[in-house]
């Protein structure tokens, strides 16, 4: 069947190719799928995975402490020290199947408390703010192949987040409620953009994404859904659609906001619990819709930094440092909590207020890239995460 995408691709190929010299049209053969979920706003690691076995936990967390595992509304037991937030029941199910793990007391190298700089460092993969202008996941795409019209990575957003921005061609997609433009208009725009690389490239990428998205009726339903939990879920389902499409991307980046819980954060129920439940519903839908692809998949859920250990004056928490990350998927060597636990005593805290970082987030990313996406170590050290010798890859994250 000749699809709309094929037709437009053929029509625009000359123009696009001339705008992008030196692109290699080839793609490495691997089944591995990777989904990066960025929680924007600094999600509270102590809320995601509560250290109920730490003698100081209940004291320092006060009203925000979760009941211990087994109690009413209590956390879900991960091991003798940690319990998962009860809103993350779907993640817990994977944990029990040894397909999910939690990395705790983790942080990027960033040590200040600005959301925007924190996200910058998390995404650019540098050792400090502003050192790199592109994203680590984009730099890691180099050996994975993928090219214009055949991208190996997609941002599930209107705009591409920093982590995916850079030299390697990536695409993006988000739902629309506007009527589709006519095919002949799109074709004329391809001609019109021929001499403007900025526009030509983006249009070519968008056309591909449209094609994959429009194949499926569920996408039509998605157009009417909008907010929060339903939105996360719908976006996860769309992600599964892209990751299972023939010739589709194998890497996806999603973003979810609303984690900046300065006020009324809650514990078993409340603001954070609602967010986590929405996330959990999305992750479960992603798993279900990926079907057999789930066994080749790693999903990493990360945030720019954590929050203060102590509760602030408005029953919330302020910007902190270390936090927790979740890895899940059939390819994850799960069922464990990875933490060099720093403790919650006053002297244990970073600057007397935050969870002390003991694991570098770059070690987690490097482990996934090396053992799951098979990015060579030399590339990891040289360009994907420059100056990261102090953060060696975590080597046992992926099922052997």
């Amino acid at each position, binding site marked *: 069947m000749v699809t709309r995408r094929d037709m437009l691709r053929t029509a625009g190929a000359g123009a696009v190719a001339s705008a992008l010299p030196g692109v290699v049209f080839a793609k490495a053969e691997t089944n591995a799928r990777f989904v990066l979920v960025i929680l924007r706003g600094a999600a509270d690691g102590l809320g995601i995975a509560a250290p109920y076995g730490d003698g100081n936990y209940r004291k320092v967390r006060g009203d925000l402490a979760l009941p211990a595992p087994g109690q009413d509304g209590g956390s879900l037991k991960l091991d003798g020290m940690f319990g998962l937030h009860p809103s993350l029941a779907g993640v817990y199910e994977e944990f029990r199947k040894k397909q999910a793990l939690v990395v705790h007391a983790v942080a990027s190298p960033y040590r200040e*408390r600005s959301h925007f700089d924190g996200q910058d460092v998390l995404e650019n993969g540098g050792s400090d703010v502003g050192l790199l202008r592109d994203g680590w996941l984009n730099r890691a795409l180099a050996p994975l192949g993928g090219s214009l019209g055949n991208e190996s990575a997609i941002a599930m957003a209107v705009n591409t987040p920093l982590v995916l921005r850079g030299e390697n061609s990536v695409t993006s997609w988000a739902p629309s409620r506007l009527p589709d433009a006519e095919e002949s208009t799109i074709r004329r725009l391809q001609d019109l953009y021929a001499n403007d690389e900025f526009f030509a490239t983006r249009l070519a990428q968008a056309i591909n994404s449209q094609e994959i998205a429009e194949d499926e009726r569920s996408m039509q339903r998605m157009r009417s859904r909008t907010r929060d939990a339903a939105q996360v879920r719908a976006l996860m389902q769309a992600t599964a659609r892209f990751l299972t499409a023939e010739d589709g991307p194998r890497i996806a980046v999603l973003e979810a906001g609303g984690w900046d819980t300065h006020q009324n954060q809650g514990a078993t129920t409340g603001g954070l619990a609602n967010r986590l439940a929405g996330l959990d519903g999305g992750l479960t839908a992603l798993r279900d819709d990926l079907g057999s692809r789930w066994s080749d998949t790693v999903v990493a859920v990360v945030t720019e930094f954590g929050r203060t250990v102590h509760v602030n004056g408005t029953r919330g928490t302020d910007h902190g440092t270390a936090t927790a990350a979740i890895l899940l998927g059939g390819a994850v060597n799960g069922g464990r909590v990875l933490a060099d636990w720093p403790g919650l005593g006053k002297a244990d805290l970073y600057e007397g207020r935050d969870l002390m970082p003991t694991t570098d987030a770059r070690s987690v990313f490097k482990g996934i890239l090396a053992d799951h996406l098979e990015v060579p170590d030399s590339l990891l050290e040289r360009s994907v995460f420059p100056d990261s010798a102090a953060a060696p890859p975590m080597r046992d994250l992926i099922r052997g």
Partner: protein
Amino acid sequence: MQDRTIIATNRFGLGARPGDLDIVDRNPRSWLLDQLQGPSRFPADIKSLPHSSDVLVDIQNLRREEREQNRSQSDEPTPEMVRKYARTAREHFIDQVTARYRTAAASDYPFHERLVHFWSNHFAISIDKQPLPTITGLFENEAIRPNVTGKFADMLVAAEQHPAMILFLDNERSVGPDSFLGRRANRRNQNRNIGLNENLAREILELHTLGVDGGYTQQDVTTFAKVITGWSIGGMSDTGRFAEGEPGKFEFREIIHEPGTRTLLGKRYPQTGVDQGEAVLRDLAAHPATARFLATKLARHFVADDPPARLVDELAATYLETDGDLSAVYEVLVKADEPWREIHAKYKTPHDFVISTFRAFDHVPDNARFLIGALDMMAQSPFRPGSPEGWPDTAEQWGGADGLYKRIEWCNTVARVVGSRARPVELGDAVLGPATRKSIARAESGVQGLTLLLASPEFQRR
């Protein structure tokens, strides 16, 4: 037609309406500078909006009604009350967005309006939190608009003391641990943690004044948070300590203010109540790091994504010499060479793009409902930047493939609506390059021609 005319109309203004280019072409620089003369402008659509304090009082009355209805029942509001609140909030929000975009579409002072939007984005607040949808647009008109051609320090104080900002960044109940109420509460209950919330203090330093590299420390953030404890809103409850003050207006609450002299960025500020925080704000406004931060943002917005260093230096120097006189800074910007060197140097944001579309057709929308949905899909939902950093301002950040596709869908939709009323070539002739002109001339229909015009690289840049 001079390139300068195109730059003045599109990059400094909000896009040409039919006939605008001929007027601007007489003297592009004067056309811009004349818009800064006289007091700030309050067009009719803006003037017809209520004051934020009245809206907040209305919202509070709604809550009171809810409590009275529920007195003997559960704590949860009834579904009917929730619907009533949601409807009220939505009506206020749509009225405010409609007024904003009507004004932008019709304005004879588009440079002035662009500056209002620029500063409103600098002091970004978001409707993500209740009851902000009811007053976010009013914040722009009450705190930003009156000060847009005045002193930055005045805008800063007005913005930080506006109830919308205080609510957005959680300062209304930030309690000094050693304040009267803080001590009493913490004596009564050891576990109940009443105290500081440092959100507003941090964002003032990081996003509104010094910038993240401005040389402040965590200690400065905490100290500043103490200084502005008590910056709250009047009449927040029906009874008790938080009932005091004029409802819905800024209220300094002595009883939660952390007493004492504080040292911030090496300077001592004696305990003087609300003046202590205002003194800090005025010093922050006069700080060289603030001058540089604001100059960089202005140059990025009006010249190029990578702002020219010489111009940033000159803008910052002017800012410091004039005690933060914004009109003086704008004048230097307009008279400098850098903005005029390259045509189409900036990729329009969806907000810019949509306004310029309206202006191209001389169309003033009756109601912003459709517009809100469209901008939402283009990832720039009105007054909903998602974070206090506000919307980004570079092609890199707006350049997603899907973003372009959404614009094309928008162009196509608009073209279908207005297609029979406009002649694309005439409309765009002055600003379009030969390739675009040829492409439009060969379009198979008027609607397609308009779509091509609006989606052309020339029209999508400013």
